[in-house]
């Protein structure tokens, strides 16, 4: 089987200025930090970033914001990264907020090829709620479009060379959803095994969703809001 394992540098060549980049992780945990390091190092900018939160100013996904590589952020929470709030108030960063479960479902819908989800209109009062209303079964619903990305990057505990992924504990979070929603998905992984070495029952993300795997160079999300 042709292995999907490539170098972090090669993988990050998929990320170009101005693309929609979706990132796994929740409060730092389960964030693909080596890929983010390389994106910073290679200088990509004008990114539209989609992820659960803005991480921390000096760590993980938050560094893309602090280093002003992000022009637009679709997320749920930025309280742990004061740079994000400051840039937002200064008008440097456009932020669209979604309730966490709705963001998760929007990403999943993108991953499984559904065009949109319907949600109750009074969930998630916020600036993102400017979408189309539809009346159905005597109630109003908001049509929330599915989210996909040019590139999705995720963090996993184990992969095989086909790209099957197994996560670890709370580092699973939105990673399996992001893994489905990228036109190109890159998984940063701790342990890489030959295809057939993972138990088919324990695989969380089937390898069909994963285009490339890279070996993490260490460092990781820490606890921390």
């Amino acid at each position, binding site marked *: 089987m042709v292995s999907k394992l490539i170098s972090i540098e090669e993988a990050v060549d998929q990320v170009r200025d101005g693309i929609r980049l979706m990132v796994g992780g929740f409060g730092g*945990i389960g964030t693909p930090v080596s890929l983010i390091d390389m994106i910073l190092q290679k200088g990509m900018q004008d990114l539209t970033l989609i992820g659960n939160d803005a991480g921390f100013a000096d760590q993980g996904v938050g560094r893309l914001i602090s280093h002003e590589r992000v022009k637009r952020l679709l997320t749920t929470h930025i309280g742990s990264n004061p740079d994000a709030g400051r840039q937002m108030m200064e008008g440097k960063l456009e932020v669209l907020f979604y309730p966490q479960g709705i963001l998760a479902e929007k990403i999943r819908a993108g991953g499984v090829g559904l065009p949109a989800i319907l949600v109750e209109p009074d969930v998630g*009062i916020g600036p993102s709620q400017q979408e189309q209303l539809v009346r159905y079964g005597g109630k109003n619903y908001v049509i929330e479009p599915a989210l996909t990305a040019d590139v999705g990057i995720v963090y996993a505990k184990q992969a095989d060379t086909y790209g099957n992924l197994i996560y670890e504990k709370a580092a699973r979070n939105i*990673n399996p959803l992001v893994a489905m929603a990228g036109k190109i998905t890159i998984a940063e992984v701790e342990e890489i095994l030959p295809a057939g070495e993972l138990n088919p029952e324990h695989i969380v993300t089937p390898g069909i969703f994963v285009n490339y795997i890279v070996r993490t160079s260490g460092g990781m999300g820490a606890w921390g809001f």
Partner: protein
Amino acid sequence: MGLLIDQRNMIARRAAREILPGMTVNLGIGIPELVADFLPSEWNVMFHSVNGILGVGPFPVQGEENAHLSNAGGTPVTLHSGASFFDSSIAYGMVRSGRVDVAFLGALQVSQRGDLANWIVPGKRVYGIGGGPELARYAKKVIVLMSHLNERNEPKILRECELPLSAKSCVDMIITERAVIEVTKQGLCLTEVMYPYSLEEVVTKTGAPLIISEYLQMVD
């Protein structure tokens, strides 16, 4: 107003009394994280965390934290027996389908109708809406745990929230270092006043009318 650790623990201890054995409970970030400490493990309360855990256990002994195991607030945790991991879409599926019995949330402001504001102070601080709106709307019971006053010593319980809302008419109960207040159809009902505060110190520092419960307790 910043609370002392004793006050935060007192709020959490009181909050724990709203939980019955076997319930599924979501603990938000901040004071709510402390609630689990006040429940016996043998009650088998299943604590739900929106990052994808059901069955969150106590905080680990220092030095035994697992780097991949934290609650939604980023605090290291352990697991209770029967715990499971899943992705965030399933975590919110549990919430949205009405399977969470009680959600404890922090708040910036709460209105007399139970409106919740906890995501932004315009022009000053942006937190983001996070999981608040969905927990507030779909949990069977929603309890706000917060300080009674803000950092300028102004009431956080108001006739109308001044800050942008996270969710409307969703809060069932408010527990602060001064009082326990139930949100009823008739308005806010004061049921407990916490030592060392007086009834008057609660009433004057609450920005909405309070119905005084006929069963009002002065709690030591």
